[in-house]
Structures are given as structure tokens and as C-alpha cells.
């Protein structure tokens, strides 16, 4: 039991440090503990027998350090792979959000009316995609934004009553559609 305690003290002592007197006395008369002490000494002496990295490996590590530093100075390492796609997706999302915000909140109210009238969406359906008569140069994003805005408004507010002029124009539009349909069917009235 005492040997184990002594050996633990030997093992746990700092390399090169002098052992306490009671430990030294025990080691002097105990072959086993002396063997442990010699082993410990031999083990710690191997510190001076270091292998070392080659000059080429040193150059590689120093080169790594400099390249990292250069990366920091230029705002980070060059993007590649998924990082590039994440950056691209984030930029696209910001751009779309900006367009939506501009369309919904920043444009003058009068401009909205002009644009909606230009699209000529049917009164029953405010969806630009359902209109069927969408011009080729029509901005889909703006159409979507306008649709969302109109849907939101229609839920919260009552639809404005059309003026007499608008009612007459709508009537004329409906009769025009009827005529065109009849022509398509090959029967004229």
C-alpha cells in the first residue's frame, strides 16, 4: 500500500523536481519503487529527443498563415461551392424584398391606379396571371405585388363603387366579349 502511494507521488511529481525526503528514503530501500523512479526519469529525458518537421512542412504552415491573413485583408477567403449559392440566394431574396417594398409602400397611390388600369384585369378577378391578356413586357413581380395589395385591401375594405363612366365602360367591354365569342364560334348576330 505504501509503495503504491510512493509511486503515485513519483509519477505525479514535476519533471526534474526533487522528491520529498520521505519518498527519497523509501526509494532508497525499495527496489520496485526505485524502478518506477528510473522509468519516470527515462521517460522524461526523452523530451530532448524530438523529431522535427521538415523545412518544406514549415514553409507550408507559414504559407497557410500568410494566405489566411491575405484572406482576412480582402474580406475573407474566396467563396466557392455552397457558400457561393447561399450568398447568391441571399442577394436575390434581398432584391425581391426591395422590389416588393417599393411596389407596396413607396410608390405614389395614383401610380398604382394607372398600372392596374393598364393591365386591364377583369373586375371579378384581380389576379394578373388570370387575366390572359398580359402584355409581354409586363413585370410579373409588380403584378404579384399589386395582386397581393388588392387582395389585402379587398379583405379589409369594401370595394369602391364604380363611377357611372366606369360602369358604362364595363358594360361596353362585356358586350364586346360577347361579340368576339360569337365570331369565334362562327355565328354572327
Amino acid at each position, binding site marked *: 500500500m505504501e509503495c503504491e502511494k510512493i*509511486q*503515485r507521488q*513519483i*509519477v*505525479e511529481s514535476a*519533471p526534474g523536481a526533487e522528491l520529498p525526503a520521505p519518498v527519497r528514503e523509501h526509494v532508497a530501500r525499495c527496489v520496485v519503487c*526505485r*524502478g*518506477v523512479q*528510473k*522509468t*519516470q526519469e*527515462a*521517460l*522524461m529525458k*526523452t*523530451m530532448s*529527443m*524530438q*523529431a*522535427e*518537421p*521538415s523545412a518544406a*512542412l*514549415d514553409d*507550408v*504552415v*507559414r504559407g*497557410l*498563415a*500568410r494566405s*489566411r*491573413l491575405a484572406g*482576412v*485583408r480582402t474580406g475573407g477567403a474566396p467563396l466557392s461551392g455552397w457558400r457561393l449559392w447561399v450568398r447568391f440566394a441571399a442577394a436575390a431574396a434581398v432584391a425581391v424584398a426591395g422590389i416588393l417594398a417599393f411596389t407596396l409602400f413607396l410608390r405614389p397611390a395614383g401610380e398604382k391606379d394607372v398600372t392596374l388600369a393598364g393591365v386591364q384585369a377583369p373586375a371579378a378577378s384581380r389576379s394578373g396571371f388570370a387575366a390572359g391578356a398580359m402584355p409581354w413586357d409586363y413585370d410579373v413581380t409588380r403584378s404579384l405585388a399589386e395582386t397581393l395589395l388588392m387582395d389585402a385591401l379587398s379583405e379589409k375594405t369594401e370595394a369602391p363603387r364604380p363611377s357611372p363612366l366606369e360602369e358604362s365602360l364595363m358594360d361596353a367591354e362585356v358586350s364586346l366579349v360577347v361579340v368576339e365569342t360569337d365570331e369565334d364560334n362562327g355565328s354572327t348576330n
Partner: protein
Amino acid sequence: MSERPETDHELIAAYVGGDAAAFDRLYARYRLPLYGYLNRLVHGDAATVDDLFQQTWSRILDALPRYRDEQRFLSWSFRIAHNAAMDHYRGAAKGVVELSDEVAAVVPDEQMRTAWEQLAGDELREALAEGISRLAAEQREVVLLRQQGLSFQEIADVQRSPLNTVLGRMYYAVRHLRRHLAAWC
């Protein structure tokens, strides 16, 4: 009048601030301990040791901006080296980095020996090297880190083990080595 040597923390701060030469001085301090530790811990071919050494420094460079002076750079860097070596062992367990029999057959034994073994001149040193290589991995690491001057508490931090466990590993490692070196001790 001699200048006060720069502390590790000062060198790190200088490097993070853009002074590449500061890293060179830091590297010069720790290249030998880290390489020696990996060389004997992995106990493999020189190419693997070189690769782990490079990986270790790459991780150190990544982590340097987050380094805090709460622990010695020595033990901090050894923990990174330890993690790199553990990753290596995991890869080896999956057969990723094991040498095939064909490759091992062509590589001369002399090249397969570690650099440390090649340095060991006398019989005692060779016997000691062999004894260390036969230790359980955890015991071998405690011995190697102790040889590099880490305190037992620092070794406990590196291994993420209780202090008493680390002390026990050292105790049993020395006892095992003593039996192995019975002819000399």
C-alpha cells in the same frame, strides 16, 4: 539591456492584426512540441504525421481570432492536435486512411518507422519507444503530453477527462513501462 520576450498572447494579437512575422515567432516556439507529440501519438508513417501537423496548424489558424488568454497556448494547441489525431483514428477505424497491404509491402521498413524511433540511438531508448508504443492510447497520450511539459490538469483538459483519471493513466503507464524496461530499471 535585453527586451522582454513577447508573450504568446501578444504574438497572436499581432498576427490577427496583420503581422505575419508574429506568427513565425509563435510557430517557432511550438513546432517541435506539436510535431513530437503527433509523431509519437500516431506512431505511423511520416506522411500521416506531416498531414496531421498541417491540419493542426490549419485549425489553429482558423481558431486564433477566438483564442483567449485563459489557458496556455501550449495546452490549447495540444487539444487541437489531440482532436486532429482523434479524427485520424476515427478515419482509420473506417478504413479511410489505412495503408493497403500492397502499399505497405512496397514501402521499406525504414520509412515506416517513426522519426523518433530513428533518432533513438541506444537500446534503452529503443526499448522505451517500444514500451510507449505498446501503451493503451489514453496512457500513451498522457505520457507524451507530460513529456511536453503539460500539467496534469492541462492534460485533463486536453483529454476531457477527470484529473484523477489522468493521474491514474500516468501511474499505470509508468508501471507498465517499468515492467517493459525491467532489464534497465
